[in-house]
């Protein structure tokens, strides 16, 4: 059974992922998260320049029947926000690991990703839920 969760991502127990390239972390929500939420209707994201901390609230995702807080997998400064989600939040259901990334963060503590789960560990975690 192939692992649908990309190997080069790290994962949180709150169902966010981060892809690290150099000192930039691209953040999103996982396939499991969007499935639980249902049809996503709105995403509330921070402005460019906001400072975030690992494990602290980053924003929120709303679906018709539920709302979920987003917690940042890494600490740093928000340098880019995916504006396309404002007009097309449904992308989060279609391509949560790719096109529907949420924010890019310039990381201030790259070492802290060791606290996060690997793809294999996350797969196990999700199956147990």
């Amino acid at each position, binding site marked *: 059974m192939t692992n649908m969760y990309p190997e080069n991502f790290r994962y949180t127990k709150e169902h966010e992922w981060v892809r690290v390239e150099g000192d930039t972390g691209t953040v999103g929500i996982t396939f499991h998260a969007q499935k639980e939420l249902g049809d996503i209707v*709105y995403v509330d994201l921070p402005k460019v320049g906001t400072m975030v901390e690992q494990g602290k609230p980053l924003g929120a995702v709303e679906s*018709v029947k*539920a709302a979920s807080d987003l917690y940042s997998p890494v600490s740093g400064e928000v340098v880019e926000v995916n504006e396309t989600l404002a007009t097309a939040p449904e992308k989060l259901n279609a391509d949560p690991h790719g096109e529907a990334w949420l924010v890019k963060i310039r990381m201030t503590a790259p070492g802290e990703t060791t606290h996060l789960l690997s793809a294999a560990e996350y797969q196990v975690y999700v199956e147990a839920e």
Partner: protein
Amino acid sequence: MLDTLGLARLEELYAHLPQDALLNRPLDLPAGKSEYEIADYFRARGAENGFFSGFSGGFASFLGAGVYFHYRPVLVDTVVSRGEFLTSYTPYQAEISQGTLTSIFEFQTMLCQLTGMDVANASMYDGSSATPEAALMARRITGRNRILVARSVHPEYREVLRTYTRYERIEVEEVDYDPESGAIDVNQLESKINEATAAVLIQSPNFFGIVENVRQAAEIAHAKGALLVFLFTEAVSLGLLEPPRDADIVAGELQSFAIPPSYGGPFAGVMASKEKFMRQLPGRLVGETTDSKGNRAFCLTLSAREQHIRREKATSNICTNQALIALMATVFMTVYGKAGLRELALQNLSKAHYLGAKLKRRFTGPYFNEFVAVTDDPEAVNRELEEEKIIGGLPLERFYPDLKGSVLLCCTEMSRREHMDRVAQGMAAQETDR
């Protein structure tokens, strides 16, 4: 049915409750009464009150102050008495609630048309609780903690504002009224507003009946990055007065729209705002959409703001709205329509100014259907008028100790010339120089 459950007595259904939690005696209440006795009880209680009948032979009344006597078109009760409206539930199941949802959508639309706002909700409990909700909304939007509220906003609305904001770490400060015009003291507003102010709350017509310069207040607020919250208690005024297009948030009371005064409730409040603040509005919202066959359909929407989903992160804890009462308002607005609402407002204006011209008024500002008159002893005047089955205006000393010898009078389309003349006579006998 007990047989199906294998039980002998109904009491066995709660036999599993701990003995020490049970009420082991009958309730000490009078025995159940027949329909006739109940009807008689309430008629007797009704007869013990002096009530505005609006019809020949009953009491006349000149009270306003947030609750108004307007004629209720017959169609209003005809519609809200239909069981499909009266006994239906919150429209969570869209397929079998399109009646309720459609009428709320119409309500939202008409409130936007009346107030000049882009979006309106499906009603709040009343104007007095919509007021703090508007202040909290402004705080959420701006991230600031100071609220400036005009002292000419309804005194009980300001009290409710204080109760709600006490533990929300919001500082509420009052801006006095100008003793000449009766409108907000603009100089004081300018000196008190700063970069920590989330919003300025202003009511128009204000508690004294004076029409405020909303544009000016909005300019002052916006210059400091604060929001302008427009409040109203007399919805009929919107039929004639320029709507508050410069406001960011509107909150008000719709009791004037065919909702019986009913000793203070139930009423229906409403909140409305500019489009960009839509997601911060508390309360229910009905949206237009389509169904699987491409037909237009309506449903509750943006629910993710509400308590049943967001729980502690909700925009408010509100669950019930005032759907049936809002429906009364919707039918009222439909019966009067575009031309009727204006004509109704014009009649109110004409009646009030007829009486206002005969009395010594306290303030010089423009007024709609309420004004403050000056007299030596308001209580004495009212006692005399009561003998002739006229309820006079509201002596203001209880709310504004600085306005001793002032009384707030309201005239509506239901006020009769003969009664207004009688009031003028009674107050003239007490006339005093300022």
